């Protein structure tokens, strides 16, 4: 324990470096409170120091993930003669390729932390989230340990498109383990939160395939945010909503964090990562480049990607 405190203390002065240069007098509204930039940073430092003492929810220990892809080289894949040839010669699929997507990542996430994952396209951010969610096999060495079953909320995680939004709400909640009576109580608040019925009243009764990308993403987020998760993984799901919805969902994420959950956010919007997260992990080519305070990491990432 003494060790952790020392680290937490050490982290505070380290943070004040970039703070001094970026501090501004204008007020920012967070959760209905008007705060100066200084106050926000102070609170974040306090939160991070507290979170460092909390129990861990996710421990990633030297994680490696390989994707094995058939037909990467294209030419022989679909052709029947190619398949026949392989069968006759008992050759392995020559188009089998191995992609080493995550190459040994270790970190610990604790209760009350909100962690942004940043990095260029294909750096392994979404793969890491799927591995944490238990949806991808880790290699024999190392592994991912979690407290409970993390919920993954992805932008392309379509629910059941030919069913109505209303059915999707019920099914999504049931799959998260809510009881039918609980769902009846919460149903209206989920629909209200998503705001899909605001423009035309019966949108929630239409099949989800008739929804716009934004409407579907909003409904998905509303469903996932109903429950207080120990670990919530959000993959670009905030990018599609309009400004009002984004503000509501950011507030909701802060609420989850306050309730001692851990939230991971994958986003290409560096600003929304700065708004939501206290900590950031920068991934590049399947390795962690940097892990620490969100301002330091995002500043380094921006300098790198612009440079």
């Amino acid at each position: 324990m003494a060790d952790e405190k020392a680290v937490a203390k050490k982290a505070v002065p380290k943070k004040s470096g970039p703070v001094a240069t970026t501090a501004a007098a204008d007020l920012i509204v967070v959760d209905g409170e008007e705060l100066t930039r200084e106050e926000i940073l102070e609170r974040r430092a306090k939160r991070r120091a507290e979170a460092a003492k909390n129990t861990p929810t996710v421990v990633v220990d030297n994680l490696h993930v390989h994707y094995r892809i058939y037909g990467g080289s294209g030419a022989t894949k679909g052709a029947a003669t190619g398949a026949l040839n392989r069968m006759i010669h008992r050759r392995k699929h020559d188009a089998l390729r191995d992609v080493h997507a995550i190459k040994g990542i270790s970190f610990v996430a604790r209760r009350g932390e909100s962690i942004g994952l940043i990095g260029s396209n294909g750096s392994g951010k979404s793969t890491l989230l799927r591995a944490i969610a238990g949806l991808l096999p880790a290699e024999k060495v190392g592994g991912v340990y979690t407290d409970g079953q993390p919920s993954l909320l992805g932008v392309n995680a379509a629910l059941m498109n030919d069913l109505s939004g209303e059915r999707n709400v019920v099914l999504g909640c049931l799959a998260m383990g809510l009881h039918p009576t609980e769902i009846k109580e919460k149903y209206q608040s989920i629909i209200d939160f998503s705001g899909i019925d605001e423009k035309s009243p019966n949108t929630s009764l239409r099949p989800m395939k008739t929804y716009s990308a934004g409407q579907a993403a909003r409904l998905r987020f509303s469903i996932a945010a109903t429950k207080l998760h120990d670990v919530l993984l959000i993959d670009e799901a905030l990018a599609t909503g309009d400004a009002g919805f984004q503000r509501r969902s950011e507030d909701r994420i802060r609420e989850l964090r306050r309730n001692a959950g851990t939230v991971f956010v994958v986003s290409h919007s560096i600003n929304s990562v700065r708004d939501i997260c206290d900590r950031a992990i920068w991934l590049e080519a399947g390795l962690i480049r940097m892990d620490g305070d969100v301002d330091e990491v995002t500043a380094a990432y921006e300098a790198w990607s612009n440079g």
Partner: protein
Amino acid sequence: MSGTQTVAAEPERKSADPGDVSLPPVDPEFQELGGSGMAAKYGLSVAGKRPNPVAYARRLWVARHFIITWATARNQALYSGSRLGQLWQVLTPILNVGVYYLIFGVLLGTNRGVPDFLVYLVTGVFIFNFMQTAMLYGSRAISDNLNLIRALYFPRASLPIAITIIQLQQLLIAMAILAAVALAKGEPFTWHWLLIAPALCLQFVFNTGLALLVARFGAILTDTSQLLPFILRTWLYGSGVFYSIKKMVAQHPNVPAVVTWILDHNPPLMFIQVIRDQLIRVPASTDPKVAADYANAMYVPAHAWLWLVFWALVVGIGGYLYFWQGEETYGRG
């Protein structure tokens, strides 16, 4: 994945930024205890690890509301695109009976040595169809629902089980129509009809086992759903749906006893014969040839109910365990 592209772009970028190439220090407690040590200390579990079969069954029980709601919603969505909508749930079996009545009752006018041929045939078609559709849709349970599997964690066996429930819901409507046809054809309503319920329960367990079995096959090898229709058609002709298998065998004197035994104990045929036995009253006949035909057509092997229980348990539990073994692999890669 596009991961390789980043690797290619990496070296030139790296040189521009030498500061952060080494891995950053991790959590101090992690350095001290290691990943498994921390997991043990705080009671964390390996992400996505499959529980033992009993705990898995408990998870399925917890997921029962999800399974039933999903099955019902799927079943309703099936006809949501058509104008008559849910009416098709009833119209489909009625039209099926109508087609068989037209072909075998009116056009061919045959009874093929079978008492009440229409009821005999329709029973066979509906009961076999229950197994056939559970297997066909079961083989695509994983590949058709990849989005759901990749988005939410739930015990994956929920899907083949829900698919069998959908088929059961459709079968129950079909059985109501079969009952109406049987009454219209002059079959008396007896307490034997009540025995159809336990027979269908056993068949449900049996079919769920098969659906779980082919669901894992289908997840490993996507070609399963292409191959399965041919296997099922062969099985259909071997299950005496359209004719009496026993009579055909009787016409060939030198069929080995093993083959006869296997044909008699073929699970779908046993389910069909037991249910036919409850529904159809065999009329007394003075003609010994007709009487022999009827006896062959209605033949039910000894201890048939015990056999049904046996098949349901072996295939049900076997399919469950086989599917459970692959739990971590579904929807990955």
